[in-house]
């Protein structure tokens, strides 16, 4: 699936988006897989309380299922306005 990163998550991981082959069924499981990959992922995902996730461009949470999801995005709390 397509995985997107924004703000300092993007900076830590080093790419704005990438294709990830995964059999993870939840966001939390996907995060575990990414953390195990390389230090830059471990650094980006060190503190999940400082992260937000969107599934197919809707805000979601880390317990959510990835069933049918095409696009996952990770980012810090938003600072619009």
């Amino acid at each position, binding site marked *: 699936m397509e995985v*997107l990163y*924004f*703000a*300092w998550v*993007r900076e830590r991981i080093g790419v704005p988006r990438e294709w990830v082959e995964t059999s993870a069924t939840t966001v939390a499981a996907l995060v575990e897989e990414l953390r195990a990959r390389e230090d830059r992922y471990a650094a980006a995902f060190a503190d999940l309380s400082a992260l937000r996730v*969107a599934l197919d*461009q*809707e*805000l979601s949470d880390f317990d959510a299922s990835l069933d049918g999801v095409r*696009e996952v*995005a990770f*980012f*810090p*709390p*938003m*600072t*619009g*306005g």
Partner: protein
Amino acid sequence: MRVSVQGERFELGLEAEAFAQANTSAGAIVTFTGIVRQADQGGLVAMEIEHYPGMTRKALTEIAQTALERWSLGDALVIHRYGRLAPGELIMMVATAARHRKDAFEAAEYLMDYLKSRAPFWKKEVLADGAENWVASKAEDEDALSRW
């Protein structure tokens, strides 16, 4: 209702005037405008605003649609820029039109509270010495949502 996510500058005067002209049956119009201000310690060179193109417009439209229904607004406007902005430039604005002032004010505050914490924008301060700081979200901004 109009929602615009744009890199280009906009003018408060032109936007507010057009909004008022289109809503003379409203009675009450409120606008809020956010401006890049000089950082507390000085030395702010630019504010870089990143966003999530696929999601931004959809999120803003949902927020505005909710405000329209909840406060029986005659109209609402949301403009938000992204990209590199200099101090003094306008970041965003919202406008609301309603029969009564209470609705226009509350809806504008609602829009702002949700834009702050639920619209996918991230701000980075660029300082004169080259330092770059991602603006941290504030607990008070998250708390502000609980009143709605």
